[in-house]
């Protein structure tokens, strides 16, 4: 009897909501990134080595992008808004190790790319975050329309 009870032990919220652990872990990652200040202007921290700055920007880009994709797939609100971040993206022109390179990174708009950009993890993170910035606006509009449906329901009931 005791064994049966142990087998049927409840996992709490996770028993009732799909992908709960994924959702919670991503929340932890977002909290850590914010606590570490990855949402602040990383360029303003003068003593940071270039490779570390790019690594942090890449991490921010991936976390920001994951937040939007998971919110869309699970139909939940987003938790990392561009409105409260210094939106910055990793450089697409520098080599991955940011080591000795003849490449002089040029100042560009966020959505602009150097024509000789390399296909690598950093470029993928940059593109994912750019797309996620549009997805954020779409999510806001989707929530607005959901509320509009709700408004119709309220009118119907009243």
């Amino acid at each position, binding site marked *: 009897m005791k064994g049966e009870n142990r087998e049927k032990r409840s996992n709490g919220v996770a028993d009732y909501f799909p992908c709960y652990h994924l959702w919670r872990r991503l929340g932890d990652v977002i909290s850590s990134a914010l606590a570490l200040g990855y949402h602040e202007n990383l360029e303003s921290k003068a003593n940071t080595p270039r490779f570390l700055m790019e690594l942090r920007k890449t991490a921010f880009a*991936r976390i920001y992008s994951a937040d939007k994709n998971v919110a869309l797939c699970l139909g939940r609100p987003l938790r990392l808004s561009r409105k409260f971040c210094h939106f910055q993206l990793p450089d697409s022109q520098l080599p991955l190790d940011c080591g000795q390179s003849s490449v002089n990174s040029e100042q560009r708009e966020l959505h602009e790319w150097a024509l000789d950009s390399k296909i690598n993890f950093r470029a993928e993170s940059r*593109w994912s975050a750019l797309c996620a910035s*549009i997805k954020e606006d779409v999510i806001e509009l989707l929530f607005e329309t959901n509320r*509009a449906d709700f408004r119709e329901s309220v009118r119907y009931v009243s």
Partner: protein
Amino acid sequence: MTVHVPLTNLVPDSELSFLSSALQATADTYWAALPAHFRGRQASNTPFDLDFVIIVRLNYLHITFLLRRLLLDRLSEPDDPLIEVAVEMLHLVVDAVILRNELSNSGTTLSWKVWVLTHVT
């Protein structure tokens, strides 16, 4: 019970259409700004490159799909442009599944690509 919904902030249909077009234009600008070798497969693509090209296109199509879905009155009655985007997304993901042994994870796994597609379907 009082329901706190800020009714005055809701987006009217005409404005929704305008905002959706503006966001699509932004997505198209981003897409056009990508280097040519990011936007299409090439014979010299490595497994990593191939995965990269698929995920770059899939991300763009995901935005297009969401924006067209936004304008639908009823999800049960999708229009032709929405179906066209969904079909292209399906092609990409099926390609990725078929080529899974020749792809190298460039940032997101194969399961993520399938996950995006399940959201679309």
